[in-house]
């Protein structure tokens, strides 16, 4: 699987480049051109899921570990916001960081335990953890209301003069967090921390021989991915207003996996592009909605077989062959 190795970037080597700025400008203008609220809501959801996909990419793409517990952290983040708001009257702006912190903490602890297992065992262990979280949320009725779920979750309170009650405001808020996530991950990748993660992914024996604490590196990646899933979950709860145990369903992890794969595992923009393409298409095309999972499952198999590096990889090969031909 060809994965992205940013070659020796110094943190000073310019900003993110032209393309991300263009995308950001387009994203800022986009909501103004959408016909109605329905599309705005899909856009907002896409932003939220893209954050979660970026999180999965950190542990899967950067550190190379297939964690299937991702949906569990999404659920924890979502329920943290929901329960703190409805049971303790905690505002969204306190609940969200609380949820993220809870996910980071539980991610650290769970990662410490699960990451001692490798490869297949790790995947199965994390799948079990994800299921346990889902089942506990579903069955612990006194805390989470079980199947009934939580309703009446208040959205973000106004910050100064800016109110977040409208769909468009929420859309920009989600975009803000997504941009923040993208910047954070870019900085992570282009730093010694990111370089170390990728070294661990590629060859943990060699990494260890040069003094890298492999366990700590993987755990850092796991914690970050859990925190990002928690951020996405918290936003999800605050925006939708109600929540059921299905938000922690393992299926969510598989959706994220597909988004990341389509865009390109390990690439910086891949998870975001993948989310928009797959989630966007699945919402907008009714025919896709009906047999959504049939297509998703098939897509996953076809992609991993013929295009394991996703769109980002295909693009990179294209550029590389053009460059090679020009020489």
């Amino acid at each position, binding site marked *: 699987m060809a994965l992205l*190795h940013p*070659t020796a970037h110094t*943190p000073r080597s310019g900003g993110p480049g032209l393309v991300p700025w263009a995308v950001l400008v387009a994203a800022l203008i986009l909501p103004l051109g959408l016909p109605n609220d329905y599309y705005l809501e899909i856009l907002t959801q896409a932003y939220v899921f893209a954050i979660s996909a970026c999180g999965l990419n950190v542990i899967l793409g950067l550190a190379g570990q297939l964690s299937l517990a991702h949906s569990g952290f999404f659920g924890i983040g979502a329920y943290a916001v929901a329960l703190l708001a409805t049971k303790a009257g905690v505002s969204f702006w306190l609940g969200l960081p609380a949820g993220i912190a809870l996910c980071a903490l539980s991610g650290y602890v769970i990662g410490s335990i699960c990451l001692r297992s490798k490869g297949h065992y790790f995947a199965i262990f994390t799948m079990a953890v994800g299921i346990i979280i889902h089942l506990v949320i579903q069955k612990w009725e006194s805390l989470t209301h079980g199947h009934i779920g939580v309703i009446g979750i208040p959205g973000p309170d106004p910050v100064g003069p800016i109110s977040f009650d409208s769909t468009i405001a929420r859309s920009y808020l989600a975009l803000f967090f997504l941009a923040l996530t993208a910047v954070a991950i870019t900085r992570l990748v282009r730093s*010694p*921390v990111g370089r*170390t993660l*990728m070294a661990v992914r590629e060859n943990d024996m060699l990494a*260890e021989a*040069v003094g890298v604490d492999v366990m700590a590196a993987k755990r850092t990646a796991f914690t970050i991915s859990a925190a990002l899933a928690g951020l996405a979950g918290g936003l999800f709860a605050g925006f939708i207003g109600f929540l059921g145990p299905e938000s922690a369903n393992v299926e969510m992890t598989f959706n994220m996996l597909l988004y990341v794969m389509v865009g390109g595992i390990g690439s910086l923009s891949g998870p975001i592009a993948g989310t928009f393409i797959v989630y966007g298409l699945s919402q907008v095309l009714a025919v896709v909605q009906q047999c959504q999972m049939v297509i998703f499952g098939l897509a996953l198999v076809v992609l991993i077989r013929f295009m394991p590096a996703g769109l980002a990889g295909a693009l990179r090969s294209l550029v590389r062959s053009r460059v090679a031909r020009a020489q």
Partner: protein
Amino acid sequence: MTLLETHRLRKSFGGLCAVDDVDLAVAAGSITGIIGPNGAGKTTLFNVISRALPASSGRIVFNGDDVTSLQAHQVARLGIARTFQATTLFGNATALDHVLVGYRQRTRAGLIDALLRSNRLTREEDEAHDAARDVLRIAGLSGHEARRAQDLTQEQQKRLAIAIALVAKPRLLLLDEPSAGINTDQTRGLITLIEQIAAAGVTILLIEHQMQVVMQLCRRIMVLDDGKKIAEGTPEEIRHDPAVLDAYLGRH
């Protein structure tokens, strides 16, 4: 002073004893060779010293500290670096990236620094890049920084492996058959490089099959056969040791 000692070091895999009660004493600043027939346990010995594998019994003392139960990355940070017999790399990363990873243990910047692009991060990145280019130059790989490590020749990859091990300024360097798979010309260059490294104060422990490399470089040589140390001494002594001749020509 003795930089590295092992006391009755033993490593067994099930019924097979790969390293059998080996006592070793390596003087600081020296180049010591380890030779022996195939399967004698030389690489396993390296694996146990570098803590890539746990010892079954015995002790390892490095720079006066007992490191027997430390983890591989911990002894690496204490100053033991190594190369591997079979070239082992980081996927399709560039040569520079490889060496930068090797330098990581000398930097302190962490996740927060990375996210905030702190001054410490910028400073350490500059430092790391300078150190990396330096060591690549010493290893004869200037100009190849941006090439993918897997695109380098076999010999260049060996030099890269040495560069990665060197950049963290180790006190002890374990070289596992550095001349394997390269021709005589290149071997001469390699010998020069190893002499340069030793001259800079790095203690070297060298596993080698090519006799002229060993005889030329090493002040002391240890011979392993079937996991046991069967001889130890200067090149001259080893050359005439009947047990050594027997091991190479006799039963094997």
